[in-house]
């Protein structure tokens, strides 16, 4: 899962060229659909070739996961065998999964991770919205400088500051007493988000803001009543990537969280890998699969929103 830096395509210069993505890409307004344009190829044949190709590719992509699923159905002893039983699937998937939830406290870990991910997502979105609002709808001295300051952090991933950040957590005693804060507060600002929302807001016609000003609306009201409703797709897309990135975070939690009851889910997967001094591959695969379910579900649910959020921005 890639780092959430930098921002997805929100082209800088199209505005200078006098266009908006919406104008240029809203083929719907031009009365066409991809289906129509490609209809000349369809001509009443079912596209077996395409189906076959898709199935083959899907199969290739899914083989590793299928193997993992198969291993997850085996007990420690059965997965022990070399080679492990390939077919039929074993009967111990339920046992493995329930072991995850009882011995390894997966339910608790998922709750921890969900809370952490939610806080990070909400924090990043809120802070980025506010910053985007400030950069687009206000003129103030030092604006360019401050924007540059924020932009520069796009190039500074967390990995380079792990050691000093850890020292800071020690001074604050967050690692031992407030691991939840240690996992969330340092990551609340998002240069990607600021960039994204700035682009998005900049694409919205100025007349809306003028109208709001004439109506005497406060900036916050303008944000909540006008901007946010127009930005749900972008917010949703950004939130999905952030959620997945936080859910999959491993290195920082391992460094900072000492209390096993406060672990995040990836740490749980790691602890499933060393069970009794032997690697229980069945349990480990089950752990990996279970740990990956929530982001997968979220992705499936938000799939369409995600595509819309980055492909098209609607003009209002």
């Amino acid at each position, binding site marked *: 899962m890639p780092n959430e*830096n930098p921002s997805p395509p929100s082209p800088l210069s199209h505005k200078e060229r006098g266009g908006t993505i919406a104008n240029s890409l809203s083929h719907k307004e031009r009365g066409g659909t991809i289906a129509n344009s490609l209809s000349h190829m369809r001509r009443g044949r079912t596209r077996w070739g395409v189906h076959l190709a898709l199935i083959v590719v899907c199969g290739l992509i899914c083989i590793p996961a299928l*193997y993992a699923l198969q291993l997850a159905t085996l007990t420690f002893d059965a997965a022990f065998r070399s080679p492990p039983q390939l077919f039929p699937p074993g009967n111990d998937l339920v046992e493995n999964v329930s072991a995850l939830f009882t011995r390894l406290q997966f339910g608790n870990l998922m709750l921890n991770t969900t809370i952490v991910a939610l806080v990070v997502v*909400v924090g990043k979105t809120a802070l980025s919205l506010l910053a985007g609002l400030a950069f687009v709808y206000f003129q103030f001295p030092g604006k360019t400088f401050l924007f540059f300051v924020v932009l520069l952090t796009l190039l500074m991933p967390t990995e380079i*500051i792990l050691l000093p950040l850890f020292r800071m957590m020690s*001074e604050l005693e967050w690692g031992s007493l407030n691991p939840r*804060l240690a996992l969330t507060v340092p990551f609340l600002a998002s240069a990607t988000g600021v960039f994204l929302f700035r682009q998005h807001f900049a694409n919205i016609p100025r007349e809306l803001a003028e109208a709001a000003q004439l109506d005497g609306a406060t900036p916050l009201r303008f944000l909540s009543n006008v901007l946010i409703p127009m930005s749900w797709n972008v917010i949703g897309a950004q939130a999905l990537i952030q959620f997945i990135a936080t*859910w999959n975070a491993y290195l920082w939690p391992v460094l900072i969280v000492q209390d096993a009851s406060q672990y995040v889910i990836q740490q749980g997967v790691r602890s499933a890998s060393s069970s009794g001094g032997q690697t229980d591959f069945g349990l480990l*695969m089950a752990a990996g699969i279970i740990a990956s379910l929530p982001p997968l579900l979220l992705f*499936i649910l938000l799939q369409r929103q995600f595509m819309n959020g980055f492909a098209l921005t609607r003009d209002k």
Partner: protein
Amino acid sequence: MEDSPRFERLWTRTVLVGVVVLSAYLLITEWDGFVRLAAWFWAGLSAAPQSLSNIAAYYAALPFAQLLPSLIIGALVGIGMTWRTIYHTAQPRPILTLLGGGLVGAFSAQILSATIQHCTYLPEVAAAETIGGWVITALSAMMFLVPYWAYLKRAPVSQAGYFRQRGLAYAFLAPTLVSLFVFLYYPSVQTILLSLNARRFPIRTEKFVCLGNYVSLAEDAIYQSSFVTTVLITLAIVTLSLAIALGVAVLASQKVRGASIYRTFLIWPFALSPVVTGVIFLALFRDGQAGLINYVLTSGFGAEVSWLRTPDLARWVIVIASVWNILGFNILFYVAGLQGVPPELLEAAAIDGANKPQRFFSITFPLLSPYTFFLLITNVTYSFYGIYGVVDALTSGGPPVGPAGIYGGATNVLIFKLYEDAFTPGAPIGSAAAQAIILFICIAGLTLFQFRFVESRVTYAE
């Protein structure tokens, strides 16, 4: 809006309530943590005057001969940049602007130079370090010069559409700025400071070595090979994942029944963490019958391949695992991008007699360039940083190359070596900090390069 306004308002309201509840919950349960944070802030702020006087004392004690070169270099860079700006855009009072540029440059150059304690300007320092010092000073000068340049180039803007309450803008920006400063800039400075020392975790004593860590790294055969390995693996991952993703995205954008289901099955691996990916591929590529691939090979062809013990093969396993992990992400964006290609353009080209490949390369591909550009950056970032989990699970730095691994590990990518040098007991964390800074410079350089040269080639639809 396609959704009814009432539904949207309800949705907005629910989300806002949820946010408020979440914040309240966090505040209440972690109240003591916030108190300590405030205390820490307060302590930091109260220590600020002391830091300022420390800085003043430092400069007072600094021999002028050591300070002078940094001032000169900074001023020169500043004047050079300002001169260029004046040349291209008319400026009132050019002399004053030039002077300002020189001052800004000289001042800005002190930021990094003071951090390294002007150590590269000592006479007994090696040539490589001196040159490094010049580069650092020049870069440091640019830090404030770029905003200065932006300020010089500012164009008057109409006041329409801007809110009047300026103070609010600062208030809105404050949380982001404070957070970035405290949790990103400040630790980065500390990383730089750490990289100037030789230190072994967990021993507390340290030795100031100026740029010695950087010079040792440059001369270290293992670091060099790690660098080359990272570049090669990154190239492989990025080209493969982008090319395959584009092909699959085209396939997945065809109008067939169940296309969205196919898409889900194609895209989902990106939601897996690199650790889980690494573990799954370990189960596939292990030696002996325990690994699925070897089992198939043995049953089918009677031969077995030692994937993880052969340097080149191990690299390819890492590449395959990483491509598998990130492919879904690329496909997702390409599918989104393909949906935005206007069909009329394709139809017009078809009428003009262009065949499918020609249509693809002259119309579709350029229209996808914003996505390609974005994905390039993301994939490169993943190959540099995110790949750690994959390497850790699969090869732990890979089979050693050369006698006793004097050429490093075959899959010892930069980020893996960094963590090993940071978190092994007795490990040189000063060198690890230097590696982190070098990695940052590489990524920053690559990203800036991509922004300047690739983005200009990106076509945006008009």
